[in-house]
């Protein structure tokens, strides 16, 4: 039947849309190899691997990368704990204020980042808290909770209550039930949520500019280079590496949740 084949116009429009979303990122890959170091000249006058070596030898890039990894790891751990607790409570029972809690979790990401950032900064000011590693983590963990929560709450709903009751009937206490029954059931959702939280924190710049003070995470380092370009080739290489690094958790999260989502879709 002809209605199962897409009209040509739609195919072209959809293809152009996808191309529009991907070509700019691919362009960065070309620029990472260009020999031109003063401008964004296209087409590149020549190709070289030199800038990878230059970037490798830059201590400021390594420092920024290391800070970003540390912040993202600790924020992810905090978000995992808080997000899972919240999802467990919300999915278990209907209790007073349940809607309020859901709203509270989503708010940090629903409101523009600049509002979260400036709120935190003015609160730090009022409370005389100096900027440190922990002020960055405080901000990041706050907006990472929602990612873990979203992943966990969907899975908790699918863990049937009778499994938990069966475990208790067989003599396990609450902690054993959590360790041996609930955790294995929700682990892939948590892993996926954790990966996304890591990617979110690793990339965050808007809130971080307000909570970092003089410290440089990798995105802050890039922002500095964007506003006042000093070494374009190094920026190109860092940008390419960041793209490759953030793709891994996304692919990972996709493969971890793919099977379950298909099952849920078939159930409809």
């Amino acid at each position, binding site marked *: 039947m002809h*209605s199962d*084949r*897409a*009209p040509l116009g*739609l*195919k072209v429009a*959809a293809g152009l*849309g*996808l191309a*529009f979303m*991907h070509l*700019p*990122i691919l*362009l*960065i890959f070309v*620029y990472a190899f260009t020999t031109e170091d003063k*401008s*964004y000249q*296209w*087409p590149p006058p020549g190709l070289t691997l030199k800038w990878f070596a230059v970037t490798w030898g830059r201590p400021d890039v390594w420092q920024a990368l290391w800070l970003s990894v540390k912040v993202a790891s600790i924020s992810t751990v*905090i978000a995992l*704990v808080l997000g899972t607790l*919240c999802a*467990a409570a919300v999915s*278990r*029972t209907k209790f007073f204020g349940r809607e309020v*809690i859901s709203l*509270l*979790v989503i*708010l940090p990401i*629903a*409101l*523009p*980042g*600049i509002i*979260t950032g400036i*709120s*935190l*900064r*003015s*609160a730090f000011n009022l409370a005389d808290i100096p900027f440190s590693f922990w002020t960055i983590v*405080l901000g990041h963990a706050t907006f990472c*909770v929602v990612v873990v929560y979203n992943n966990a709450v969907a899975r908790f709903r699918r863990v049937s209550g009778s499994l938990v009751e069966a475990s*208790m*009937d067989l*003599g396990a*206490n*609450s902690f054993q039930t959590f360790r041996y029954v609930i955790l294995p059931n929700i682990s892939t959702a948590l892993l996926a949520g954790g990966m*996304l939280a890591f990617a979110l924190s690793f*990339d965050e*710049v*808007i809130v971080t500019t307000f909570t970092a003070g003089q410290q440089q995470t990798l995105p802050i380092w890039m922002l500095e280079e*964007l*506003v006042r370009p000093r070494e374009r080739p190094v*920026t190109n290489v860092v940008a390419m590496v*960041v793209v490759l690094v*953030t*793709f891994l958790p*996304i692919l990972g999260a*996709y493969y971890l949740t793919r099977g379950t989502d298909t099952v849920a879709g078939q159930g409809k």
Partner: protein
Amino acid sequence: MSMQAVSDRGAGLFGRLSDTLWRRPGLLIFLLILPPAAWLGIIYLGSLFALLAQSFFSIDEFTGIIQYEFTLKTYAELFRPSNFDIILRTVVMAAAVTVGAAAVGFPVAYFAARYARGKWKAIFYLGVMMPLWSSYLVKVYSWKLILAKEGILNWMFETLHLGWFLNAYLAIPVIGGNSLSVSATGTFLVFLYVWLPFMILPIQAALERVPHSMLEASGDLGARPAQTFRHVLFPLALPGVIAGSIFTFSLTLGDYIIPQIVGSSRRFIGQAVYAYQGTAGNIPLAAAFAVVPILLMAVYLWIAKRQGAFDAL
């Protein structure tokens, strides 16, 4: 009975604690919810209210010292022509980006929901997820490369001998400028690019729920494809479009990095907030400016809720 059996066996502190939690689910919920609620309530809401409170203070124009007395003076300053222009400009940009993202995103979402199968379904899914999650700054940076005077877009126009067209376009006031990277059009393109996936995903979710048979019925009853789109498909997709527009609208309202890197010197709300709280040290006015997107989004969400957009999220 079974509870009794468990508690007999579960000796020790953990056992007793476990039993208490099982018997009193309310306590368990309370203990589960306490850490996240405390974290978000104290750190997030606390800061948010601290900010809102500051917007009711004012700054002494001569000494530059913040006066901690309740006043609406700071809010009145928002309606000064120079400040009100910033708000108006931001809202117009957010609306334009929303309409643009819906127009570009709809075909992608429709194809993915209706025609893509098997391998292509996965390609389209990842094709939207990858740009959504890839680094925000890298995406902005790539457009700095594209829009630069010596960059690929100018090169394409020159190669196709269309340089005159680009120059004529850039000569238009307001949307034009010296080059694309310092024009409002450039800012629009970057906003559109960066927020596009946020529009596609909810539209796709809404379209997945439109039964195939409904479109066929419309065709059987004599509707041309354009009529089917206008009277059947689009109304059913509208909640998805509105859900997507919540993201594109809210994200554009609050962004201060994109217009700073690609765009003219005319400021947006985010830049105003950033400038007033930073070098100017006028935290009350920055706070008042920050309230504007919150209020606009509250109104927008209220309208969206009435249109049933939240079911499509």
